[in-house]
């Protein structure tokens, strides 16, 4: 219970807002493709973080319910 990291929510949201801002800048500079790439990279990074969290959930549920 004490090891839960609520910071992850803010990290994800921070990455999202950061990417939005950079996206706007890149679009103003007529660099649509790089903006697209940036969005993709952001999504992948956030996905990696979320996957770690889901892994934690699976591990704890597996150990609690004697699953598998």
């Amino acid at each position, binding site marked *: 219970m004490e090891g839960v990291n609520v910071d992850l929510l803010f990290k994800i949201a921070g990455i999202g807002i950061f990417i939005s801002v950079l996206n706007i800048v890149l679009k103003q500079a007529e660099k649509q493709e790089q903006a697209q790439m940036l969005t993709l990279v952001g999504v992948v990074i956030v996905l990696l*973080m979320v996957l770690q969290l889901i892994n934690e959930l699976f591990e704890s549920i597996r150990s609690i319910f004697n699953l598998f």
Partner: protein
Amino acid sequence: MEIVQVVGVGLVATILILVLKEYHPEIAFQIAIAAGVILILLVIGYIVEIIQAVTEVALDAGMEVMYLQVLLRIIAVAYLAEFAAQVCRDAGEGSIASKIELAAKVIILVMAVPIITSVMESILSLLPYR
């Protein structure tokens, strides 16, 4: 006072999702997933205590441990499937959500086969003729 943390995480996540949904719906959904996982991880310690109490009562009542374990596994499968299906449905993929639920039902049925067969055997042994 876990409830304060739960409410806080829920409200903060909702507002963050509202902010991000306009520009990046994909990241907003990942925040939703992370918030759901965090909320469950907050109360998972209590689930352990509840399961221990139920196990003690069941052992006192002379119930077989195997049945209780099957029950707990079914609960876990149902919960995980529900979680994933809700996320999919939130993201507008109702068909994938239905398939997850169907798969979970099949898995639960497979897990319950030993119990069903034992019930059938006891019913058959009650019958006076064969």
